[in-house]
């Protein structure tokens, strides 16, 4: 009885509150002021710069007429064609190697005891902070011209180490893989938690071994996470700037470095061409994400038709 009364009065009062709520809303719209700083920030520093950049990439310098010439120029000059090609292949290589290592790293974490898991996760967490200029420098003292491993190679006569050239494509891949591993592994760990022990048991009851389990159950279940993580790693590499800049300066043609050169140099600024390069970079990033979503849908479609 008492409860019912309390409930009724509570209902009554919450209706009143709601009425006051709505009355307040109808009377004045001053509350919208709270949204103002956010809107100003988003428009001035997110949408306006982005839109002007896209528009600018289609304009002729000085005259301001519409053109595709900026995009054509990317593919006409070897320097910029190389930048696109190098960025694409560096990102594909480093993300590819990264995702394979991340898979085994996350698998090891998933199958290990809690204590080992925590230790390894702390190491990943810690080293994921090690990127950019500090990372490039520590690879220079490790494998640069007078690097510690180069000395070791000379001392023991390991010609592979002795003659290693860090300032090359393979050197960049090596350094990029370093920052892909912690990120990739930490992103893959939650996905492994979705694998159920029963599935493995079911496969072994049906006479399947570990290999069959991974190819028929494990990998297909993990596929969305693998593709998603791959595209994160790809974007991460394709837009990385600090590491390559500190390692090679302008001596290796990569998109982010060529882009910033068009805007930052005091001598010759080519904002229109730079904008086209930047849009190109965005297309690469979005392209890989769309591609991975498409692959996923196709795989999902196949699986669902198997079921039927």
């Amino acid at each position, binding site marked *: 009885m008492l409860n019912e009364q309390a409930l009724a009065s509570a209902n009554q009062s919450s209706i009143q509150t709601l009425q006051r709520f709505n009355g307040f809303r109808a009377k004045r719209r001053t509350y919208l002021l*709270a949204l103002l700083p956010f809107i100003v920030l988003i428009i001035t520093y997110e949408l306006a710069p982005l839109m002007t950049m896209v528009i600018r990439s289609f304009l002729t310098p000085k005259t301001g007429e519409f053109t595709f010439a900026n995009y054509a120029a990317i593919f006409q000059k070897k320097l910029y064609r190389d930048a696109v090609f190098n960025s694409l292949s560096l990102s594909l290589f480093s993300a590819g190697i990264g995702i394979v290592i991340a898979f085994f790293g996350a698998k*090891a974490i998933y199958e290990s005891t809690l204590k080992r898991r925590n230790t390894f996760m702390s190491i990943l967490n810690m080293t994921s902070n090690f990127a950019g200029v500090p990372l490039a*420098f*520590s690879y*220079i003292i490790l494998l640069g011209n007078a690097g510690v491993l180069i000395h070791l190679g000379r*001392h023991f006569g390991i010609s592979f180490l002795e003659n290693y050239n860090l300032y090359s494509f393979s050197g960049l891949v090596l350094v990029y893989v*370093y920052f892909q591993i912690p990120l990739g592994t930490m992103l893959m760990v939650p996905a492994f938690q979705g694998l159920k022990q029963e599935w493995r048991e079911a496969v072994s009851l049906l006479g399947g071994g570990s290999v069959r389990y991974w190819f028929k159950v494990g990998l297909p279940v993990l596929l969305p996470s693998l593709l998603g993580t791959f595209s994160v790693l790809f974007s991460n590499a394709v837009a990385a700037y600090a590491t390559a800049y500190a390692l090679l300066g302008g001596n290796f043609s990569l998109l982010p470095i060529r882009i910033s050169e068009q*805007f930052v140099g005091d001598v010759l600024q080519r904002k229109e061409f730079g904008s086209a390069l930047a849009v190109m970079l965005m297309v690469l990033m979005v392209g890989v994400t769309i591609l991975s979503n498409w692959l996923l849908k196709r795989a999902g479609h196949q699986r669902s038709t198997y079921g039927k």
Partner: protein
Amino acid sequence: MANRGKQKLNLTIMVLLSAYLILPLGLTFLYSLFQEWTSMLPTGFTLRYYVDLFQDPGFYLPILRTLIISTVPVLLCTAITILAMYVIVVHHPKWQKYMQIFCTIPYSLQGVILAISILALYSGLPLPFSDRIAMLVCTYCILILPYIYRGIQNSLNAINARQLIEAAMLLGYKPLAAYLRVVVPNLLSGITVSFLLSVSLLFGDFVVVNIIGGSYYPTAQMYLYKMMFRSGQQTSAMIVILFALTLLISAGVLVLQQRNKKSVAHKQEVADGFHTI
């Protein structure tokens, strides 16, 4: 038997990966402690490089600049987003999806594109816009927006904000006061994690500060970059100090996360207790 073999394999993988990841870091640390490393082993143990750094008056200013520029935008961005969320939570829950879109765009822009698009737009304009430091602060605000927004949204999901506000209004609060004095304090513990993550992200930034700040606002990362061409040992010492600072920030994140987990578990227990009654 097979299981033990598998454990061994997993342990090997983890040990190898850990060694691979720690090698450059550990080496940089060793490198900063010795005068020379031109043969197999380093020679001449010294703490000179650290002493030199701490005695150099030019060392503190960049660090101070970094600390300022990695906290002010985070504070600003958090305040702006919390205010905006008031309108979403109390008045227009349906605008939530637009908010989410605008807050996740920067995530896919990454530092380079965001920095150059802002620089290209504002560097030619008159003063309040072309001021590099203001530009840097606002660029950072946008850069960390996805993380700050996620933090706030996740904490909002964990509490029933509308109910809390209705209750506070029954007690005579106006909606905004109810939001600021009842909902926001409940969000703080969840926001702190994303707050510190954003600080550590900005602390290590080189891309945006190199493009926009340039010589106008030389931070610790810029100082480090210039030092790279002078002395290897000195640079290593600087890297070790900066990395230690970053670890301090992320240790804070870890401690807070653990505490949050505990408090969530505690709340869960309390809620379960209610159900059983």
